């Protein structure tokens, strides 16, 4: 990552191109945040990854926590000792952490504490597209929404400051398009971290027994009132354009689309841009409503702003005409909001004609892509999960049920394996599998990754032992949190500070949980792995089978570093073009050209799986059987 050096530059006023998440990392350095915790998840991962690269150099503490809940706990502990802290996670991570966050709003914090939630409209890499601004309403916490990289940096610093002022955690809510868009960022001064905290016993404030919680709830509501005053004065809430034809209120990346859509239609629009979206600046909004005959609320996902703005209007500007997505149906509640969607909605509201014939483009486009082969994400050539799925499908066939979990291995649902029947959230495969097994009696093989196992799999496993469920838990251990960028986890023996630590072995954890049948196999030894899986399925209670082999990308990098040559597998003249390798494995390195099977030597990682499965022994190469 050449950018980590750029992030560290002590060069106020310097202007550089940064990813939204890198800008948040820079904000961490400019705010003097001293404890950063995270669990990796798209689109939030680069925040923690950037900090992990530089933490020891800067003198701040960074950790990849075992899950988002623990990440908030660790940071909240530090922040209650007066140290500035930040936790980054993807949107669904906040569900995991919610129990902690909502009551932490009662105790409050002493050092500034920011919780970054990176939402994912359009579900680019997530199981849902929930709108986490509602957590701010639910928990009564201030919420900031940047629309670009520059704001992402500024708001990180601002969030720390208002958190300290209000003694409350502050939510910084991004979306995929904010976190994963690069834009110019102007640097401010760096601020040295201060890791030295002190803990003061204060039972009334910190111990949330009912007698303390009741008055603390009142304190929280008072702080929320103060937060509203801050919101009225916030530099991030302001009228950025004047225009009387129509008023637009917007936030986050929807704001970017709204500004461009208004230009496209040639609208003289007044624009109120909201950066602090909880609590809302009631007075400012009231004034804006009164100054425009009609106001359009442009926002992504839920009508979070619209609901509140309509409530404000009812009390303070009852004659205001407000359009949005609640009943007017001008904008969708689902999916990502684009300039096209905003322009279309604005055009309907204002009767201004769209200058682009989108429908004509759509027609032409659907014509040219008709029958075009798709290119969905696939397991990499040499991915150990491919070998695991081959073994699992071979043994479990159509007979077994396959609850699945969150990670690269979710791709097992695709052909040729079809391993994956139900997948909901982190760690759920083990619990769901128990329910299925109890009521169907079918063989149940739950597949879960190594990092996911530590994150949320262990309670499910304890439950399986306690309630004697007949289930096989196949832990697909590729020795990294691979999908989000190979972050370390408790099973790797490395920390976010990039130092070595005690390695926690999944098989020992399983034994410790009381699982009687625990085995570790190399998935590339397919015969042995299949025999072990068969045996596991014969057990009267829960069984754990760890399929262990490193992620092929890490493996390739390691080989390159050591100067070890990768000798690609090769198809010999014995090949009958029976297509078994393609039918059984779906490896992207095996291609068919004019009816002939060929191995693309640039893609092949020499895992040898195809050598193992070829019925004619026609593939030459090393094989791990």
């Amino acid at each position, binding site marked *: 990552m050449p950018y980590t050096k750029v992030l560290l530059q002590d060069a106020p006023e310097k202007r*550089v191109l940064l990813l939204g998440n890198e800008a948040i990392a820079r904000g961490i350095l400019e705010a003097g945040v001293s404890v950063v915790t995270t669990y990796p998840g798209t689109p939030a991962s680069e925040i923690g990854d950037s900090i992990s690269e530089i933490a020891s150099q800067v003198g701040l503490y960074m950790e990849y926590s075992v899950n988002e809940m623990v990440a908030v706990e660790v940071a909240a502990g530090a922040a209650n000792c007066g140290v500035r802290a930040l936790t980054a996670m993807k949107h669904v991570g906040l569900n995991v952490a919610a129990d902690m966050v909502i009551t932490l709003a009662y105790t409050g914090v002493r050092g500034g504490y920011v919780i970054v939630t990176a939402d994912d409209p359009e579900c680019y890499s997530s199981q849902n597209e929930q709108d986490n601004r509602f957590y701010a309403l639910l928990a009564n916490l201030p919420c900031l929404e940047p629309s670009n990289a520059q704001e992402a940096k500024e708001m990180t610093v601002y969030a720390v400051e208002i958190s300290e002022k209000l003694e409350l955690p502050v939510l910084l809510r991004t979306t995929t398009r904010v976190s994963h868009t690069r834009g110019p960022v102007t640097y401010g001064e760096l601020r040295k971290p201060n890791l030295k905290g002190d803990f003061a016993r204060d039972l009334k404030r910190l111990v949330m027994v009912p007698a303390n919680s009741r008055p603390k709830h009142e304190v929280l509501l008072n702080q929320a009132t103060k937060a509203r005053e801050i919101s009225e004065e916030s530099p991030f809430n302001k009228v950025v354009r004047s225009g009387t034809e129509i008023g637009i209120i917007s936030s986050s990346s929807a704001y970017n689309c709204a500004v*461009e859509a208004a230009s496209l239609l040639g609208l003289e629009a007044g624009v109120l841009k909201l950066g602090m979206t909880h609590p809302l600046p009631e007075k400012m909004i009231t004034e804006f409503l009164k100054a425009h005959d009609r106001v359009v609320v442009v926002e992504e996902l839920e009508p979070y702003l619209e609901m509140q703005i309509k409530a404000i209007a009812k009390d303070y500007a009852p004659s205001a005409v407000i359009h949005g997505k609640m009943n007017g149906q001008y904008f969708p509640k689902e999916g990502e909001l*684009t300039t096209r969607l905003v322009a279309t909605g604005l055009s309907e509201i204002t009767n201004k004609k769209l200058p682009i014939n989108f429908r004509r483009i759509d027609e032409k486009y659907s014509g040219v892509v008709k029958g075009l082969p798709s290119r969905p994400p*696939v397991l990499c050539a040499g991915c150990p999960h491919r070998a695991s799925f081959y073994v699992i499908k071979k043994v479990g066939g159509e007979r077994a049920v396959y609850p699945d979990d969150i990670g690269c291995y979710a791709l097992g649902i695709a052909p040729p394996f079809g391993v994956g029947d139900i997948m909901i959230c982190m760690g759920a495969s083990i619990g769901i599998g128990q329910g299925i097994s109890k009521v169907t009696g079918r063989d149940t093989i739950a597949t879960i990754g190594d990092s996911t196992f530590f994150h949320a799999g262990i309670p499910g496993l304890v439950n399986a032992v306690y309630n004697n469920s007949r289930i096989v838990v196949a832990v697909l251990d590729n020795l990294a949190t691979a999908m989000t960028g190979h972050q370390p986890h408790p099973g790797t023996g490395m920390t976010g500070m990039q130092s070595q630590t005690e390695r926690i072995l999944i098989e020992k954890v399983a034994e410790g949980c009381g699982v009687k049948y625990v085995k570790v196999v190399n998935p590339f030894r397919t015969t042995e792995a299949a025999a072990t899986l068969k045996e596991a399925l014969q057990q009267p209670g829960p069984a754990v089978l760890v399929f262990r082999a490193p992620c092929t990308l890490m493996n390739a990098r390691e080989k390159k570093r050591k100067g070890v040559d990768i000798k690609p597998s090769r198809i010999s003249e014995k090949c009958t073009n029976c297509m078994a390798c393609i039918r059984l494995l779906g490896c992207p390195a095996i291609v*068919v050209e004019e009816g002939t099977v060929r191995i693309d030597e640039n893609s092949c990682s020499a895992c040898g799986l195809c050598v193992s499965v070829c019925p004619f022994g026609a593939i030459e190469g090393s094989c791990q059987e």
Partner: protein
Amino acid sequence: MREFNIVLAGVGGQGTLLAAEVIGTAAVKEGLNARVSEIHGMAQRGGAVVSDVRIGDGVFASTILEGQADVLLGFEPLETVRNLRSASEKTLVVMNTQRIPPTELAARNTAYPTVEEVLAKIHVFTSKVIVVEAAELARKAGSRLAQNSVLLGALAAVEGFPVKAESLVEALRELFPKKHVEVNVRAFELGRDSVRKERDRV
């Protein structure tokens, strides 16, 4: 300056996102406003990858509106076709001929579309197409992996592209791993020259 929009379309592992970052970095070096959007696919390799690069004062949104690309920089023929929604008659398509067959083709035992078929599809949207033999030029430069730099060079030679070639090279030198820089600078130059030649011929 009016805005300039580039769609980069390729396959995971081709260095599409790095190329987009180079363009954005170079633009910011020149004091321009820019947005570079990325969608990080579910898997680390092999999926379709798209990045929109937008340069200009009036640029706010991350993505390019349908039909509004000035250049569609295709790292791979099928992915070029898949992103034609961004193209219109004003769009110049710069396409690498190097094919990466999707696994679906092998599974269905169907052939990859021919160059003529791909070009016919592009022509539905625009007649302005430049084809680049990036694999061949990258190999000539010293590494088949340098195709992204060949395509960056090709882009630098496009008329109206608002960022100087020197700024692109400077950004490339900063962003690429040190030991690969020289090969990639050579690849950049070969790409740029090939498009210049093409331009002169036309």
